[in-house]
């Protein structure tokens, strides 16, 4: 996916958005947003009144009615523009995704192995269960699972990550995505989706339909906005008889004009939030896309904002995936340097990060230089799942390193025995949350290398931040309780689940849910699928298995487990932006009353001039200024709607106080200033 982020008002986006704003004047489109529909009808009515005034039967000067009508049309267009602009950005994203769907050809196999005969078919004809062979420099034709072979795959089109990834059959790295490219070797892929259901298809559908599905909270808010609109409709409609009655009893002035009433109505109903509501939703989905997270629904994004509990895998999320050697703990009667030397020898051919870290530590502590592998004439024993140890045979010495029980078996087979002191060390190391690696030479056990889990830098601060947001973090690990407790304390998580089995994970999620909490988790393996399905917000890693991806309601293309935190923030941002603009919109009404009410009734009751606290120039300019302010504020707030109100992890009370001050009090004060300025301009130009 393209990561080129377009500027907010990039001409590429603005031009089609302007065209779309006019296209959206279709009543069927307007009807979808009841509040703006009222403005739309108001615009038509005032235009009709203007035509009537031109014919010489106007209730007010034609120029005034025209000005009001024009600005009401602008209000509708500005709201349309906001929506079109947000949609334009999503469409740009969808377009770049669609380019992945270029016509590809697939080598469809007739038998379930690489040597079987194959025929070339278009990718669009592949069905679930078909087998395809993909060679180097070919594009994978559809989402699927590797059943044979190993290959490096360039997934940058989806993830934006340029480093190739390894895909192989079996295990958790077997899923491949259509549209990505094999760089080396070959694989046999079993197609897992039918055409139109592929991952890319789902992403495009999601982005494009973001505007159509309202999220639960958006629906609730719309109900409130419609309710407010109804009440303001009654307020303004009843003003006509009130005004006529007042003219009757005061025997002065003329009843309020329809134009003024429509202007008042449009100013009062929450046009600001209603005009920006769908833009906020679309922009929220867009932000998720930019963070490289694909949500299956807007509902899931919204739910992310409500998360109370975060389940995080230890490995890869809280700790670096790899353990590192942190100390040499020799057995009784063995010098530490000898242990280090043996350990270094045993690790010479060990390319794993753990092996590397032993070399580094030996060099740091005892200045043991790396020895030349060739000159040693050594024979290296690689790690195997059967022996669960690795090592080297050099100068007749058998040096091995491995898990405690593996080495014990090894030395006992050779006729030696495991000293009690070493067993004690092994236990100590485990208690500290580290992994013990025992080193032996022949029948002699030299000691233990401590491999420590390294907690990721900055993760502790991240958890503290989450705690302030009111989110509990729980670490999930297969380690025993002792190890888990030590790492949990170091990383600063609130709780941990040790010796985690899929059943235990599922039970933990259910328990939290029954206590009324919303649970989020990340997962990648097939055994995570039940828990992912149970969690309220489940982010599957893109590198994960198909089962995991299907069970989750979001997929993280970067496969970065800490992304969950960003997901939560985006969810919160969406709700905050809506709430803030609603508050702002409603608070605005106070100033508009002060502008319009005196202006509307001043002919009947000149005393009402006392309420004109803004000292607006004339009744006409007062009404016009309020309408213009009401239209312009939508334009001013488009950037805020698209970017979202910034979320700060401050705790609910502080956040509320801050936002109430900015959007509540600000919403109260801003229109007084805005309307006054517009009035000065109008009066200055001499329009009214």
């Amino acid at each position, binding site marked *: 996916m393209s990561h080129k982020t377009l500027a907010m008002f990039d001409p590429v986006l603005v031009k089609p958005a302007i065209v779309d704003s006019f296209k959206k004047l279709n009543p069927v489109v307007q009807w979808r947003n009841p509040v703006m529909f009222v403005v739309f009808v108001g615009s038509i009515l005032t235009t009709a009144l203007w035509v009537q005034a031109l014919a010489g039967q106007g209730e007010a000067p034609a120029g005034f009615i025209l000005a009001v009508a024009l600005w009401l049309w602008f209000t509708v267009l500005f709201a349309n523009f906001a929506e079109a602009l947000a949609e334009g950005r999503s469409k740009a994203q969808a377009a770049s995704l669609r380019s992945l769907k270029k016509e590809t050809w697939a080598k469809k196999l007739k038998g379930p192995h690489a040597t079987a005969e194959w025929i070339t078919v278009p990718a669009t004809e592949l069905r679930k269960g078909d087998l395809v062979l993909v060679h180097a420099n070919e594009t994978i034709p559809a989402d699927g699972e590797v059943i044979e072979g190993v290959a490096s795959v360039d997934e940058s089109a989806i993830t934006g990550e340029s480093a190739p990834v390894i895909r192989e059959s079996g295990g958790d790295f077997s899923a491949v995505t259509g549209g990505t490219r094999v760089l080396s070797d070959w694989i046999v892929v079993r197609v897992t989706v039918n055409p139109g259901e592929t991952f890319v298809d789902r992403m495009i559908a999601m982005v494009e339909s973001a505007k159509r599905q309202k999220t*639960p*909270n958006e629906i*609730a*808010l719309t*109900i*409130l906005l*419609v*309710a407010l609109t*109804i*009440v*303001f409709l*009654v*307020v303004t*409609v*009843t*003003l006509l*008889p*009130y005004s006529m*009655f*007042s003219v009757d*009893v*005061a025997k002065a002035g003329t009843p309020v004009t329809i134009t003024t009433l429509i202007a008042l109505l449009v100013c*009062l109903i929450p046009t600001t939030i209603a005009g920006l509501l769908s833009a906020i939703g679309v922009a929220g989905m867009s932000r998720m896309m930019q963070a490289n997270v694909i949500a299956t629904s807007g509902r899931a994004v*919204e*739910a992310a*904002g*409500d998360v*109370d509990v975060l389940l995080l895998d230890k490995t890869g999320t809280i700790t670096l995936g790899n353990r590192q050697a942190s100390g040499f703990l020799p057995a009784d009667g063995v010098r530490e340097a000898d242990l280090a030397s043996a350990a270094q020898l045993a690790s010479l051919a060990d390319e794993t990060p753990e092996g590397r870290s032993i070399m580094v530590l030996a060099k740091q502590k005892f200045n043991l230089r790396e020895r030349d592998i060739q000159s040693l004439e050594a024979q290296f024993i690689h790690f195997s799942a059967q022996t669960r140890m690795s090592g080297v045979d050099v100068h007749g010495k058998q040096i091995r390193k491995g898990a405690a029980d593996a080495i014990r078996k090894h030395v006992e087979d050779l006729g030696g025995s495991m000293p009690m002191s070493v067993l004690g060390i092994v236990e100590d190391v485990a208690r500290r949350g580290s992994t013990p690696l025992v080193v032996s030479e022949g029948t002699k056990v030299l000691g233990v290398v401590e491999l420590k889990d390294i907690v990721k830098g900055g993760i502790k601060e991240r958890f503290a931040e989450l705690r302030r*947001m*009111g*989110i*509990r973090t729980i670490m999930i690990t297969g380690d025993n309780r002792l190890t888990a407790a030590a790492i949990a304390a170091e990383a600063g998580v609130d709780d941990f689940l040790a010796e985690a089995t899929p059943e235990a994970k599922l039970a933990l999620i259910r328990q939290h849910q029954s*206590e*009324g*909490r919303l649970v989020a988790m990340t997962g990648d393996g097939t055994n995570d699928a039940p828990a992912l399905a149970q969690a309220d917000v489940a982010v599957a890693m893109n590198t994960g298995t198909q089962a995991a991806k299907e069970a989750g309601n979001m997929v993280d293309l970067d496969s970065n487990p800490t992304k969950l935190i960003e997901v939560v923030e985006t969810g*919160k941002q969406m*709700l*905050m932006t*809506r*709430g*803030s603009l609603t*508050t702002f919109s409603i*608070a605005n*009404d*106070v100033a508009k*009353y002060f502008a319009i*009410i005196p202006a509307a*009734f001043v002919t009947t*009751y000149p005393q*009402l001039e006392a*309420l004109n606290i803004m000292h607006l120039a004339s009744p006409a300019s007062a009404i016009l200024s309020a309408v213009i302010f009401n239209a312009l504020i939508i334009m001013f707030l488009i950037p805020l709607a698209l970017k979202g109100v910034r979320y700060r992890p401050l705790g*609910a*009370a502080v*956040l*509320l*106080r801050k*936002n*109430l001050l900015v*959007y*509540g009090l600000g919403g109260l004060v801003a229109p007084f200033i805005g309307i006054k300025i517009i009035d000065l301009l109008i009066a200055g130009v001499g329009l009214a």
Partner: protein
Amino acid sequence: MSNHAWLLLGLYLVILLALVRPVGSYMADVMEGRGFAVRLGGRFESLLYRLSGIRQDEEMSWLKYALAILFFNVLGVIAVYALQRLQIWLPLNPQAMAAVTPDSSFNTGISFATNTNWQGYSGESTMSYLTQMLGLAVQNFFSAATGIVVVIALIRGFARHTAKTIGNAWVDLTRITLYVLLPISFVYAIFLVSQGAIQNFDAYKDVTTIEVTKYDNPKNGPDGQPLKDEKGNPVTEPAETQMQTLPMGPVASQEAIKMLGTNGGGFFNANSAHPYENPTPLSNFVQMLSIFLIPGALCLTFGKMVGDRRQGWAVLAAMTLMFAVMAFTAMHYEAQGNPVLSQFGIDPSAGNMEGKETRFGIADSGLFATITTLASCGAVNGMHDSFMPMGGFVPLWNMMLGEVVFGGVGSGLYGMLVFAVMAVFIAGLMIGRTPEYIGKKIEAYDMKMVSIAILVTPILVLALTAVAVMSADGIAGVANPGAHGFSEILYAFTSAANNNGSAFAGLSANTPFYNVMTAIGMWFGRFGVIVPVLALAGALAAKKRITASAGTMPTHGPLFVVLLIGTVVLVGALNYVPALALGPVIEHLTLFAH
């Protein structure tokens, strides 16, 4: 404001806040079927259920509950209507009061069933003792009980989780009447008798007064409407008399529940300004206390039943703050003299004594007016029509707040909780979570019910007022010219739709037009809110209860109190500002123009 006024307000608040806690706690026990009272009366209660075929342990869904409440109140309307129409043939009618007209009977039936107690009639010249006792006093109990059980059902909605039911309406109505309303009213009535309130079945007494009373008698036209001259002023003729008829009746027993149940329908037309209803400054003080007692205590009942007393105190704090400000405003403006009268050399330092009882004076009347209009009681001890424009604005504005600041018994709190849900919904979004209140997520269905409950009353008020000012029948009832006439009509419908029942006077409302229009306002203003509130209760009860965390918006601190006040005031202001501008605001600006 005078020292007396400050002292009065301070003392009132202290005693009120001391009383609400035990009463609130007691009500929670009663409604949960616990405590000594329920143990004591359990046998009698069970007997009642057996006699009426009610299964005590059978719980109701919200819809069943709402239907039971509606059925109960329709029966009440019919009973009161029938008693008035048939009173001439029934006992306890020493003055031989004739059958009341159909439209007035209908209006009164609705009025007393909806806890509005709007009175188009005057009690001493219309109702027999039987109608007063068996019709009106009984409805005073039942309409109060209705309000309370509805809020209890709503509280259960918050307190329960994943439940299908919200209680049994019959059991709730029985308990609140039996253990709360009856015992307090009994003691209260005896206290009122000790102060001089009357309680008898005697015929009216004629007495010769010492002074000769001279007065202007308003002339009525052949249609029963007041005659007006060409300027729109009422036509009067001078008259004098030395004869006074003293009405009698079982006053004290009805007076007690009139105040305690925030009913406000006076035995006499003069209501609590009448010495037989409200004899002394002490009885006046106790009457004021009794209006707020149950509405205030229910806040704490709420806190106790949802298991977090702070929630109850927060709601009570919001109510108390708003009350204090409004009480100050009313007392302050009434203490100012009328500038028009001052021009004639009348000392303005005495304040505005027009329409006030000399027994109570300005402070006690100003405070009483604030309390009775905030609490949807509607009893009066002075004429709100004669208040200063801003003093008269306070009662009107109080009602426009939706009768949620203390409000009617039960109805005040459920109204306030509906506002709380709305406040939480908007503010909750601002902290980036799906809004929740008392552990319940606020979703689309809940917002629908909240919106209906908040919308119904303002729409009724504004629409009915519009109909009245457009029709000849509506304008005919207006006694005063100019903007004040508009205020009178607006006040009448505000009072009716908000179930307050106080009158601005000045409006001749006992006409078929106003009887029918206000009845519509009262009925839908009451049950148009109760039904969505019960639906909300049902929806809330069915939800899971969410545990509070640091990310949850706290709804017990000062910030929430401010937010709640802001929401109530803003919604009230946005709904009514244009109408107010054409009424009291114009009057004030005109009066103080120079």
